[in-house]
């Protein structure tokens, strides 16, 4: 057995490594998810469980300016299908 990670040939192999592990997903529209990855496909459609969604809502004058306040909305969902066209990145959560 080669100790080096075998069979990593393409980006999707890296996602596969995170199957049934907790992942961090960045989405369009200032949304972020963490959840346990149970399924993915070639379109980056995902099925996650124990999901926590974080939505960044920038408010204030001319949203995007520095003085605009950033509100964070969070919510939890048991199991969630995420459509792949909104996915920006899938990553393992930062390990401490």
């Amino acid at each position, binding site marked *: 057995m080669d100790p080096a990670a075998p069979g990593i*040939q*393409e980006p*999707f*192999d890296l996602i*596969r490594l995170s*199957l*049934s592990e907790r992942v961090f997903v960045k*989405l369009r*529209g200032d949304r972020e998810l963490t959840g346990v990855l*149970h*399924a*993915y*496909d*070639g379109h980056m*459609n995902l*099925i996650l*469980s124990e999901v926590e969604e974080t939505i960044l809502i920038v408010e204030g004058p001319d949203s995007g300016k520095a003085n605009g306040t950033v509100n964070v909305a969070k919510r939890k*969902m*048991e*199991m*969630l*299908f*995420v*459509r792949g*066209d*909104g996915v920006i990145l899938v990553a393992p959560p930062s390990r401490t």
Partner: protein
Amino acid sequence: MLIFSVFKTLTDQRVTVELKNDLSITGTLKSVDQFLNIRLDGIKVLDEQRYPHMMAVRNCFIRGSVVRYVQIPKEHVDVQLLEDATRREAANTVKR
């Protein structure tokens, strides 16, 4: 096809479809196709005040591409089976 397969097992279950325009519709999943277009029955819009025009609507057909999330009932997903299915598909796409 994996996700399509999963949704097929969820027919007749209550799901919540969140669209990209933030409209959330809860309803009974009646059918789904390979584009993940979804047909819902007995629908209820989450924020009825914001979408009063949806109050009279009983069922709807949702084009797959406008979906952001679908919240699915956890108890109707076999996580291990799902992960296996994902691995099988991943292994097969690599082979191809």
